[in-house]
């Protein structure tokens, strides 16, 4: 279980042109990775990652690769193993559940990447604030035993 306040928090965004979230899960190949900076309370651009090449080519071009392809799923999970969120335009419920079990939360949203990042950063900021308040409260509380 991740340390909510200390571990690096990354979101992977599936985008072909860098500006719009317009990728369906089966066509996942290029991801922009952003990391949350607690000082600015914003997501900062980190790098581009691509789904490992050996996973490509197992289907004909244009055919979606989905949860039915274990090689593809493995590659996605490996590539995103350090990311808490994956944002893309569309994904089916089954691959979403598989990824969730591996610790990757799915955000299914189209539109401008920058807008989504802003909304996500304010959500994460609130969540961290609430968590740190809870932890402070706990450490001050002597009666943890019943």
């Amino acid at each position: 279980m991740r340390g909510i306040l200390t571990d690096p928090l990354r979101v992977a965004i599936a985008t072909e042109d860098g500006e719009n979230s317009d990728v369906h899960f089966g066509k996942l190949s290029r991801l922009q990775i952003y990391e949350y900076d607690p000082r600015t309370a914003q997501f900062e651009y980190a790098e581009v990652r691509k789904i490992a090449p050996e996973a490509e080519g197992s289907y004909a071009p244009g055919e979606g690769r989905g949860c039915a392809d274990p090689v593809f799923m493995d590659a996605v999970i490996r590539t995103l193993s350090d990311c808490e969120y994956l944002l893309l335009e569309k994904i089916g419920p089954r691959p979403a559940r598989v990824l969730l079990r591996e610790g990757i939360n799915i955000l299914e949203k189209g539109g401008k990447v920058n807008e989504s990042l802003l909304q996500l950063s304010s959500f994460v900021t609130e969540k961290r604030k609430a968590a740190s308040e809870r932890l402070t409260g706990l450490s001050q509380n002597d009666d943890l035993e019943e």
Partner: protein
Amino acid sequence: MSSIIQEAKFTCALGAQQTVLGIQGAVPVIHAGPGCSQRQFTYLANGSGYQGEGFAGGGQIPCTNASQTEVVFGGEKKLSTLLDSAFKVMKADLYVVMAGCTAGIVGDDVKQVASDHSSPAHPVVGVDTSGFRGNNYKGHNIVVEGIIDQLLEEAEPKVRRGLVNVFSVVPNQNPYWRGDLEEIKRILEGLGLEVNILFGYGSSGVSEWYDIPNAELNIVLSPWVGLGAAKLCQRRFGTPYLHWPVLPVGLKDTSEFLRKVAETLSLDPERTERFILAEERRFKRYFVSLGDVFTDYAAYLPYDLYVIDDTAYGLGAARFCTRELGMIPQAFFVIDEPPQTAKDLVAENLTALDEAWKGKVLTEPDNAVIRGVIEQRIAARQTKSLILGSSWDKDLAQATDNILIYHSAPITDAVILNRTYVGYTGGLNLMQDIYTGVFDRHAVSNLTHGETSRERNTYRPAAGSNCN
């Protein structure tokens, strides 16, 4: 006090989806996480006497299946899309959007989304039934008041003499609600009244809800559930209300209730008495026919009474069993977490009847705790007992050879259709089941073979009249 409930007697506010389904032709549209609605249905329909899905219930209920995406980005857009789809797929007279915990925490304004989508062709209202707001009794109030508030916003009352609205038992949560509402409607119609019973098969559905402002009187037939709705109707439409906390069971309470209604509405006393006396005569004949059972099996009759129920259902039954059946009050465990005023009403209406009820009305939502208390008391008193309870209490009753009547949720090994435990008919049904219990609950064991219920393993509490 534990914050864990081991044996639940109710669900969270979202359980009021069954309230919506209780209105013929209405569909709940759930804005919550996946599975919430399913659990409500499982407990309140299957787990409450296998009552069926209804018009659009069970797996048919539209739901946004809110996920992380809705938590981060808000869920109103998804809800909006869902409503548009629901209009195409589910043909209903009323759509009630119900917010669950996710939507409540995130702050989605379901009332606004509902209002944006509402039209005469597809009326939509929106209510906040986030689970953390309370139990499904609270949820029921929220839904009823929300519908009246939003659906009847522009309504102009045109009062009809003799029309009454009834606010009483909670659909599904009170497992016998369908039969109960039929009986309540029957006895009020017996006085010559026109009744908007609002829920169930005896109701004409959403059209009765539109008719609410035209009533001459609202009747709140329970200690607290429905009272808010009646007060809202008074504020909005000027309709007076009669708050009658005792949901009547048996002869005395039912007659007293009917006479009060007749007095409040200045009904023709001759017609009122004619109806009441006919009902009483019928009731008394059945009652008297039990004479042989009372005398020949006096040693096997139950004397101690334990009631595990919500305020409405338990109060009437407790009064009936003590006053008309002569049982000795042991405890009434109140499970619906009522406001203090309702607790006081219940205590008053019991101690006024029999001083022995003093100090015996206890609030406790966890049936595991309740069973522990009953077990101790039974062991101490060693007296044949009657437990008005649920499937949770089956083992206890069996182990102590006492009579259990399924009276409150959950009920998992009986099928309930139109059975009622309310009114004149309900009193007769209750007596039939209690005194059948003397025999098929093996309180009188098979004397030639000396078998006990445990050996035969055929023990089952009766909700119906089949003795096996």
